């Protein structure tokens, strides 16, 4: 709701500012905030991982551990089924051993718990950051600057026509070597 009140009847537009040196980025972000572009409308793309404390950006949270934990629980359950469930479904005696026993089942329980953890952590990365969210435009429409993989730092921000000129001016002031309007969306 905030957003619509703030932007009123202006269409939001997407811009990018490209920097070579990470030392200039915090200043550039401060300049953007001064103009009135909030952090919610800024996305920073980098070629190496920079902590949010380096960039001076709000802390980023990752949901990947939650995926991992869920997967581990599912894996453990699957392990219980394979060790104790299948012995219950089709009891077969071997070597004078009990049908249900803990020590040998620990092996499969461990392996399947770890498998669940690993696979679901990977799925977490896919779902949380790489696959497009449901209902959003496909991958091709996301903003990106190819210089990022050469370690340039690209600041994408969305703002209205009213603030754009001031923002671009400020960014050039702090040393952006390329500032242009682009097509696309954040996610």
């Amino acid at each position, binding site marked *: 709701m905030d957003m619509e009140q703030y932007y009123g009847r202006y269409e939001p537009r997407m811009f990018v500012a490209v920097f070579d*040196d*990470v*030392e200039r980025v915090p200043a550039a972000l401060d300049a953007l905030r001064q103009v009135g572009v909030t952090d919610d409308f800024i996305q*920073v*793309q*980098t*070629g*190496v*991982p*920079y*902590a*949010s*404390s*380096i960039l001076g*950006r709000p*802390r*980023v*949270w*990752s949901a*990947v*551990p939650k995926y991992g934990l869920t997967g581990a629980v599912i894996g453990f359950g699957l392990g219980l089924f*394979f*060790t104790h469930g299948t*012995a219950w*479904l*089709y009891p*077969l005696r*071997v*070597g004078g*051993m009990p049908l249900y026993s803990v020590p040998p*089942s620990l*092996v*499969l329980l*461990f*392996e*399947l718990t*770890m*498998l669940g953890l*690993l*696979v679901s*952590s*990977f799925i*977490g*990365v*896919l779902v*949380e*950051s*790489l*696959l*497009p969210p449901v209902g959003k435009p496909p*991958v091709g429409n*996301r*903003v*990106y600057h*190819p210089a*990022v*993989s*050469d*370690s340039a730092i690209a600041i994408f921000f969305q703002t209205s026509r009213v603030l754009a000129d001031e923002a671009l001016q400020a960014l050039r002031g702090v040393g952006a070597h390329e500032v242009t309007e682009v097509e696309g969306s*954040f996610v």
Partner: protein
Amino acid sequence: MSSEFHPRNEAEARHIEALKQEHLLLDHKTRAEMNDMVMEAVEDTSREWKIAVTVLGLVTAVTLFGAWGYMMLNGLGLAGIRRPIYWGLFIVSFVFWIGISHAGTFVSAILRVFKAEFRRPFTRAAELMTTFGLAAAGLYPLVHLGRTWRFYWMMPYPNQRWLWPNWRSPLLWDFFAINTYLIGSTLYLYLPLIPDMAMARDRSTGWRRAVYGLLALGWRGTEQEWKNLQKAIQIFAWAIIPVMFSVHTIVSWDFAVAMKLGWHSTIFGPYFIIGALLSGIAAVNVVLFTVRATTKNMRYFIRPEHFDALGKLLLIISLSWAYFFFNEFILEWYGGEHTIKEILKFYMFGDIAPVWWTMVTCNVFIPGLLLWNRKFRRTPWLMFIMGIVVNIGMFAERYVIVTGALSRNRFPFDWGWYEPKLVEISIVFGTFMLFLFLYTLAARFLPLIPVWEVEEGQHSHTWRRIGKAVLPAVSDLESLD
């Protein structure tokens, strides 16, 4: 993050220059330069490379799959195994390849967890070794089956009779452990590769761009993407270590849980893990030397410092192996059980003695005597030879354990002798060719150097002056949030 450092005098400048020569992470290059170097290496599909891939592919097809198919059609009797030695070269090679596959994860995950900076350029080369080593190892449980075409009965799936596999069997544990490890280590290889795939996508054309684009999964390098990726890499690095340990422990349990003297040993778990690391780290040296010698621009990324570090690791592990071996061998001997003594006598003085002594020489004496020498460790081709020597020793170790112990049983009537036959040797040779084929193919397709990790490492290395000395300073960028 510019880190210009101005030397005060000539001597200091020379000192700094020498340190840069030594350490990749101090020898800054721009990311664009490094990207170009790696991409040049990847796209260097020269005529020699094409010939090598074709030959390796054909040889693999004939010696591995041809021989395997021939054996499947005729029966396992084509192998040399016979009563009472029911397991032979296939299981030996299985354990061997599982061992090889360990080092990739070891150097990558453990060194990552401990933030050992020197790991950065070669984690991927080592992880690739893990994946392809497992591809070779994973074939053997199928190859050695009497009825390979029924291998899927080991999988737990709701079949028509609702008959499930036996979860008490170490072979089933193997099945799960190897699959977990294969899936886990492949994903672990893939995760840090995603940003490099994006890099490759951005600077390639044609089919390569299409494939790299697909594999990059739309990677852009946003803060959220990095955060998720780093979290996942962290989870993997921690979790894959116990999985790795479990895999070789379970492989050792194939033997250790058996009611078989010479196999039933409580030390087998850690003994096999150390053995796996010994052969694996040795193989990393072989792979790194080969990559360095055959791939463009790799001399910048892989330097004597890396062979030096791996050499120290190899020395420590060789000594640890000797320690476990001593525990395993001498203490069993002192137990005094008659059959055990027969087995150990057979190892040392029996028909299998040449193999046993090869093992001791290659695993302990040669590395133990030579790796103390810094010059030796820093000479890549010597480390290459050392890698091969140690692997011969480790192959011998598995050969002795698998076939040697089976040759001596409780009743002297059940003693036997095993010699591999042509089909077995061909298949084992074929898996070596398969490994080389896959690696050669991958070396011209995947960026072998994790460029972003190297750059991250270079960012965290700067210079510092304390008193009159200049020395490198490392900041722990990874711990920042």
